[in-house]
């Protein structure tokens, strides 16, 4: 097993994904996971009803596969798993899950960090927060752009 990438329409449990990932790998000593969860409030403190994530045909999955392939080329990881929700996501549900495995903890950390930076800015999704007063499209922030520029 090397890179495994999925777009999921349904709620998923990151701890189950971590368990399955760890079960699939060999005897790598280092396993890192990242879970990104939908927040409950906008930056201005309005309660959020849902985050809506739009994907586009095969292009979304292909963009994730390219990012995962780049992570494997760049870091000494032996396995990775990337899961991204699409559709309507309620507060606290997982939006994205990344797991990496390596004999070396630095490689596992850096690859997970890199995967997230790339996913934030390059995975083909569009997202909109629905709140009581309407909805707002969310684009990558300046911090997201400077994070990805580090690599």
């Amino acid at each position, binding site marked *: 097993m090397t890179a495994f990438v999925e777009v999921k329409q349904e709620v998923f449990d990151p701890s189950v994904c971590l368990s399955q990932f760890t079960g699939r790998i060999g005897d790598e000593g280092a396993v890192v996971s990242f879970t*990104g969860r939908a927040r409950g409030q906008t930056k201005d403190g309005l309660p959020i009803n849902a985050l809506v994530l739009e994907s*586009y045909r095969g*292009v979304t999955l292909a963009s994730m596969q390219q990012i995962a392939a780049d992570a494997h080329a760049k870091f000494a990881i032996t396995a990775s798993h990337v899961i991204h929700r699409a559709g309507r996501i309620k507060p606290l549900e997982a939006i994205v899950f990344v797991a990496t495995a390596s004999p070396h903890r630095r490689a596992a950390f850096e690859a997970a960090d890199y995967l*997230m930076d790339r*996913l934030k800015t390059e995975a083909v*999704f569009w*997202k909109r927060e629905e709140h009581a007063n309407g909805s707002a*499209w969310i684009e*990558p922030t300046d911090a997201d752009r400077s994070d990805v520029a580090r690599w």
Partner: protein
Amino acid sequence: MNQSLNVELCGKLADSYGGSVTLDISPSGLPVRELFEAVSSAYPLLAPILAGGRIRACVNETIVPDDAIIRQGDTAALFPPVSGG
């Protein structure tokens, strides 16, 4: 003979006219930059955002440069800046 091309509008591009618009294109097709102009003139609420330089065209599930040619029968879409995670 001209044919109608369906152009899918992703993300915030769908706010004004819904998830797709149509355009007539000639058998010789047209480059992406002319597609932008044609969409802007037929659907003027999209003009400011298409002029902003941050919209990319996707043809048959591949993101293409501004000089790529879109032909009749292609699956075309316009992508605003993406954001995952």
